[in-house]
């Protein structure tokens, strides 16, 4: 009899692992709490570094699912071990017994309104990175109204003990540089500034994107964290920062401010981890066995993790981890 596998979280990690395990002949149940699969990828318009459309990437992940049994709008009510197997019950009334479980619960976007000094939800022309993706996907956002002076703030809710997050979110430097170029292309007369603390353009092709942003799009990179934003009576924004390269305070008036909200642990994912007694790290993300060879394994036999559930990751990272997890699960089920 084919063995059952439950995968919790229908984002890129969950879909990729489902496709691989389905192809190996397992019966895969992919549990997603939302109405549709896709996770955060479904919210993005174009992907760094080359600006490839996100749609086809999502379509191919969905297209590879094969016979995976997709269970949408399903919250996990309980997840526990029964001897060597796992039992899950869902809000839809479905219960499944499985031989292995993979957690791909991903991340939550940092709630930008928590950094009150930036005025998200208070000032008229402050948006997040996710809002910009939505703007390019759907074409409309009253807050983005033909801006001529645009600022992007890096590290919003990341590298900030006051926001409860010491860590770097890894993807937002590249996202900021990408969105700066896209906004400049959309509003060619605009002056675009990126306010960064360190520029973390680590991936293949990322430095090329940075050079292109400087050379072709004329983006001005200012090293310094925006410390205060205030709205003027005409709804323009007054920004204060230090240009730390010249050790001088700096101010500028903007028509649009884009906040690079970071990646935080998924609240719903943490709930599921608690049910099965999987520990979380000091940073709140799920704990894998270790950060090297044991990346996809956990302290619980038969329970695996992949993707942004264990910390900020890019899509290539996420997909690679999902494949690694599928291979480990296969190995585990062959032995058991």
């Amino acid at each position, binding site marked *: 009899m084919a063995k059952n596998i439950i995968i919790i979280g229908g984002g890129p990690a969950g879909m990729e692992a489902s496709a691989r395990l389905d192809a190996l002949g397992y019966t895969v149940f992919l549990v997603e709490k939302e109405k549709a699969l896709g996770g955060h990828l479904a919210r993005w318009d174009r992907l760094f570094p080359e600006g490839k459309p996100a749609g086809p990437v999502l379509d191919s992940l969905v297209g590879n699912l094969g016979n995976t049994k997709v269970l949408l709008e399903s919250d996990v009510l309980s997840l526990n071990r029964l001897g060597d197997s796992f039992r899950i019950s869902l809000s839809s009334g479905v219960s499944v017994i499985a031989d292995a479980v993979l957690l791909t619960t991903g991340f939550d976007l940092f709630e930008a309104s928590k950094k009150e000094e930036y005025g998200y939800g208070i000032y008229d022309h402050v948006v997040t990175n996710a809002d910009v993706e939505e703007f390019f996907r759907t074409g409309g956002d009253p807050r983005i109204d033909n801006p001529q002076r645009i600022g992007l703030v890096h590290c919003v809710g990341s590298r900030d003990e006051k926001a409860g997050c010491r860590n770097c979110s890894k993807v937002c430097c590249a996202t900021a540089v990408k969105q700066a170029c896209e906004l400049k292309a959309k509003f060619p007369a605009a*002056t675009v*500034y990126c306010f960064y603390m360190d520029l973390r353009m680590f991936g293949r092709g990322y430095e090329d994107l940075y*050079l292109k942003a*400087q*050379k072709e799009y*004329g983006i*001005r990179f200012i*090293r310094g964290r925006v410390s205060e934003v205030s709205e003027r009576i005409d709804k323009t924004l007054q920004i204060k920062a230090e*240009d730390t*390269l*010249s050790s*001088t*305070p*700096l*101010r*500028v*008036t903007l028509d649009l401010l884009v906040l690079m909200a970071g990646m935080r642990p998924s609240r719903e994912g943490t709930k599921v981890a608690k049910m099965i007694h999987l520990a979380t790290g000091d940073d709140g993300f799920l704990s894998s066995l270790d950060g090297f060879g044991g990346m996809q394994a956990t302290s619980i036999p038969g329970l695996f993790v992949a993707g942004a559930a264990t910390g900020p990751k890019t899509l290539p990272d996420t997909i690679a981890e999902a494949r690694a997890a599928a291979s480990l699960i296969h190995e585990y089920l062959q032995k058991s």
Partner: protein
Amino acid sequence: MIDFGFYLTPSSTIDLDKVDRKAVDDLARADSGIRTCIACGSCTASCTAGVFADTSVRQAILSVLNGRNEKARELLSSCMLCGKCMMVCPRGINTRHLILSIQKYFDGQ
């Protein structure tokens, strides 16, 4: 002016609203190095003139971007165009060409 016994120093804050964007755009057309500098400081560290007088390509570029054109000129006034900075620049900027472009642009004004 009446001497009240105290002085107000002009604010040193950079006001980007007042920066002459045209100067930056014109210079970028002459030499894209004004935009592609990554502020690594190699040029300043290796500068032969820097030992004797405040000379810094990095700071000169930054000064132009911040609208401090006078300062940019000053920082390049002792440059001997030896080209050492060009040898060390990791961004491959033709710093001598950039220095000359900055000098020419502001001398012409």
